[in-house]
């Protein structure tokens, strides 16, 4: 086994979500570097990953943070506000020509906002959650989130437009809604 071919490793909820922050960061950079169809495709993957990730945070992390962090209510309100803004910005981007300068400028703004949002979560939520919850609890939560993510619709692959994959097609806000419904269902069954 080498660095390139070893399996993905996830320990607990914080590892899982911090790892996704890095994937999101890399996907933002990938969209910026790509053009044409490759940019469309990377953008679709980004929308899907953001939907899955933000749902996991809204359903699992934020409720936990509200309860267990001193000042958690306020911290979570700030994060939810940022998530809401990001979702709206993403929806606006969708209707724009992806190779236009307007798209590039608006996308760069969204990227800066989302990267800052991720930093705030790591600094003001994650570090306290790890200090306050035992490793077993955080590992169990990671498992639940992963099961829920598997229940969420995946992005459409060209040529395999069958029912579950197609669920992720369509407008950004609809993707977020469908992902959230599917993950909520899975979380309540396993929670």
């Amino acid at each position: 086994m080498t660095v390139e071919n070893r399996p993905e490793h996830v320990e607990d909820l914080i590892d899982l979500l911090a790892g996704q922050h890095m994937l999101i960061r890399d996907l933002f950079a990938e969209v910026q570097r790509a053009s044409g169809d490759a940019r469309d495709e990377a953008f679709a993957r980004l929308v899907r990953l953001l939907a899955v990730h933000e749902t996991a945070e809204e359903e699992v992390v934020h409720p936990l943070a509200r309860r267990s962090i001193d000042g958690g209510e306020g911290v979570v309100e700030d994060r939810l506000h940022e998530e809401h803004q990001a979702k709206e910005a993403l929806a606006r981007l969708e209707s724009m020509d992806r190779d236009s300068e307007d798209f590039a400028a608006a996308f760069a703004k969204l990227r800066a906002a989302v990267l800052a949002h991720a930093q705030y979560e790591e600094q003001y939520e994650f570090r306290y959650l790890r200090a306050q919850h035992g490793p077993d609890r955080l590992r169990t939560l990671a498992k639940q989130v992963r099961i829920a993510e598997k229940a969420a619709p995946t992005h459409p692959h060209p040529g395999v437009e069958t029912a579950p994959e197609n669920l992720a097609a369509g407008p950004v806000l609809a993707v977020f809604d469908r992902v959230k419904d599917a993950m909520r269902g899975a979380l309540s069954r396993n929670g």
Partner: protein
Amino acid sequence: MSFNPLDHRGIPLDKQLRNWRELDVEPIDPDHADPYTRCRIIAMNGIEVEALLFSHQFARNCPSMDVKRQLAEVRYIEHQQQKAVNWLLPGSASALETTIAYEQVAVDLTAWVARMEPDPYLKQAYQFGVLEDFDHLYRYSNLYEMVQHRKAEKIVDGLTEVIPGRPTKYHHRHPHDNVREPYDREAAAPISKLHALTIMAAEQQTMNFYMNVGPQYMEPIARQLYQEIGLIEEEHVTHYESLVDPGETWWERLVNHEYNECYLYYSFMQTESDPRIKAIWELHLDMELEHLRLACDLMRQHDGREPEEVLAPELPQPVTFEPNKAYVRELLDTQIDLTTLGAGYVREAHERFERMQEEIHGGEAPPSERVVDEHRERFGTDYRLSTEGEHPVPELREPRSDRQ
């Protein structure tokens, strides 16, 4: 193309103060910027921090009120330069990410200086040190993947390899063995003085950075690794600062500092890939030319000597950030097992070294070993970025059983 900073007039000192709007620099992009642009920012910040600390020490040792006032005025401007330079780093990069960039600076800057240094004793000091920074890069990169789930290749971008160097556990030497012989200020080439100042400043900033960001981490292995490598930075600062001749007068030292700042801003202006950052290097060079002129006047006045007696007639070849992979591999192959004894170098573990090792490790594996062990445990391998084939030292290759 030659450039003699003594022949150029910069921006008059009373025109150098910047307002808040001018200081509010736009940071570089954390994922799209040239890694060597980030390296130049980190190196230049180290140079400015040394300028500030040196000027404060000078002021504390200076009885003349007039000189103290002039030092304070120039120092305030240099502090604004430090703010404009270091604030180019983006807030979205974590402290550990910046740490990895610091180690990339240490590797590629020290290797370049080692290649260019004419004096064999000084060259050996840089060659010795670079193999240690190279190993720190590898240890921190393993920590980075563990706590941040990202690979260091996203930061170093394949320009610098991430493989084991001289193992960090062997860097803990008796403090007496970290003190080198100084160059002779009368005989040393001007370039040698600039090299020593540059690397001393870079290592000093690294020491300051680690001593402050280390405790901000919560993960025990991260806290411990910053402590361990932070103490090695103390050794490195001792190692490099002792190369500078302590017989230089305060005035001469001030001139050398200002000249070195001109040299580095000029170098980075020549080699910068980002036009926006290049404009900052150029502006700061124009400021430094005036600081140098003022320092030269002080030297003439108080030392009764011409600065030209101690300075080069023109700036040396620009300090360049570029890959040094083959050079570092050659050093790995030939100098991996060196340690220091007194002011020199030996290959065998001598008694004082072994005693220090026993006392500091207390019979346990130090954090620099445990970070790699824990990484192997969790991910199945250590983290490496090897672009030039297998490791030149057989014992430091990836264990066979782990490879497919």
